[in-house]
Each structure stands twice: as C-alpha cells, then as structure tokens.
C-alpha cells in the first residue's frame, strides 16, 4: 500500500493539553526561583562566620591609646599579653 507523506505545515494534535504544559513550566520556574533564594540565604548565613571590615572602621580608631589624637608622632605597638 502506498504511504502518504503528510504536508509539513499540518501539525499533529498532541495528546498532552497545552494548558498542562504551561502549568508545568510555571511550576518549574517558581520552584527554581525558591531554590535560588534558599541558596542565597544559606550563603548569607555562612558569611556571618567571616566578617569583612567595613570602610569606616579603621584599626587606629579602635586602638586603645594614650596621648592626644593630633600628636605629631604616633607610636603603634602590635603585641599580645602572653
């Protein structure tokens, strides 16, 4: 029996309704969004373990000191108590 070639401009009706596909895509997108947000939260929690000094916290500002701030000589000592 001769086979009939189907013209390419005629689509075959899918067994899966289009609405179902749209819903599935939407669910995947929303799930992806929440996964990304969750990971960001985890990174933020981890970043608390290592703090990076902010720009307004110079070391000298918080150093215990004797003598005026406008002294012409600053003698700085890095040391410990042991």
């Amino acid at each position, binding site marked *: 029996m001769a086979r009939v070639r189907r013209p390419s401009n005629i689509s075959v009706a899918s067994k899966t309704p289009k609405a179902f596909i749209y819903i599935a895509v939407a669910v995947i997108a929303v799930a992806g969004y929440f996964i990304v947000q969750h990971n960001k939260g985890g990174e933020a929690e981890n970043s608390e373990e290592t703090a990076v*000094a902010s720009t307004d916290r*110079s070391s000298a500002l918080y150093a*215990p*000191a004797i*003598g005026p701030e406008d002294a012409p000589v600053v003698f700085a000592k890095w040391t*410990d108590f042991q």
Partner: protein
Amino acid sequence: MEELTEHYGDQLRLEYHHYPLGFHKAAEPAAIASAAAQKQGKFWEMAHKLYDNYKELNTADYAAYAAEIGLDVEQFKKDFEDPEVIGLVRRDKAVGDKIGVRGTPSMFVNGRRISGRTLDDFKGIIDAELAATKALINKQTDVKAAVRKRMEAAPPNTDPKNAFPGGKTYLSYVIDDGKVEFSTEATPPPPPPPPVPKTVFNAVVNEGDPIKGPKDALVTIVEVSDFQ
C-alpha cells in the same frame, strides 16, 4: 612605654594593637578580655592585670580580674563572647599581618617599622620623627595632615604575600578603610593536655656506660641521644 609618654607629653600618642600569636594559646582570650574591658573604658587596667599574670593566663580568672578593676562583671562576660568584641581583636591581627607584623612586639613610628630595644633607642627614633613631621607643618598642613604625609611616605610592606597594591600599606590598612577579612567565631576552648604515658620501660644501664651520680640513687634518669 610609660616613660616615653611622660617624657614627650602631648607630642606622642601611644597606640596598642592586638597581635595574639598562634602558638601563645592564652594570648587571644586575654586580648578579647582586654577588648571587653575597653568597652567599659578600662582597657589599661585589664592590660596591667594580664601582664601581671602573663605566666599563668587562664580564661577562668578573667571575670575575677574584671571584678577587681571595678567592671560590671555580667556585662564583661557578655562582651567577652560578643562577635563584635572578638572582631576587634581579630581585625587588629589581620591588619598586623598586612603590614608585615610577624612577631611580638612589633612597633611602628608614624608608619615606619622600628627595631629599637632601649629607651635611648626609642628616644632617638622619636626625636628624628618629631623633627621630620614638624618640618612638614605649615599654613596648609596641620599636625594631623603632616603625620598622614609621613605615614604615606613610609616604606611599604614588601612581603609578596601581603603587599598592598600601590604601596601605601600602613596608611591604607591602619588609618583608612583597610579592608581585611577576619573571623568573628568564638575561640574554641583549648584541647585538654595529652595524658601522661603510664608505660614503664626497663632501661638497662650496662657497666661502662657514661654515668653521673651514685649507682644507688633513688631516681635514675636515662638519656638516649646523639650529638647532632
């Protein structure tokens, strides 16, 4: 140091920066205790306590020190565990690393590392720095600006691991923004000391072995060694 501040008066500012060495196990908790005392305005009082007891520093004693120098002890205990207070110490050490501190004490005069040992050494260095700074002061440059210029001109840390791009090491890290990374986690308690071995060995001492002391001494120490 106190003699220097008395000698120079308003001409000198002495800054204390934390650099608890890793192999000084008690040094970091002690530094944090001093920073906690600083929160109540009594850093130097706590520092004196810690220096007086430097051979037997023990975290368990710090609350008692706090009481002795008149701190609010409960507040001190909270501050001792406060990540912000811990961060003050860790940040100072991280800055020290960046400017080339490797041991204690390490001293800088207007951003220049010095290596004096005696009071006269320090006076000579400070006198020279006073002259250099005062020479920069004029109508446009006040004392603070002159000090800043001296720090800006200080030799950079050339350590390839920590060298600051642009060379303004001291000024950049100590005085300006000086971004460095440091942990604010609480210090873990020191590990317990290893148990004393209980194995008894029978060390045989033969006739003719080099010996000092009587053969019937109550204690015999046997040393197994070489000459290299």
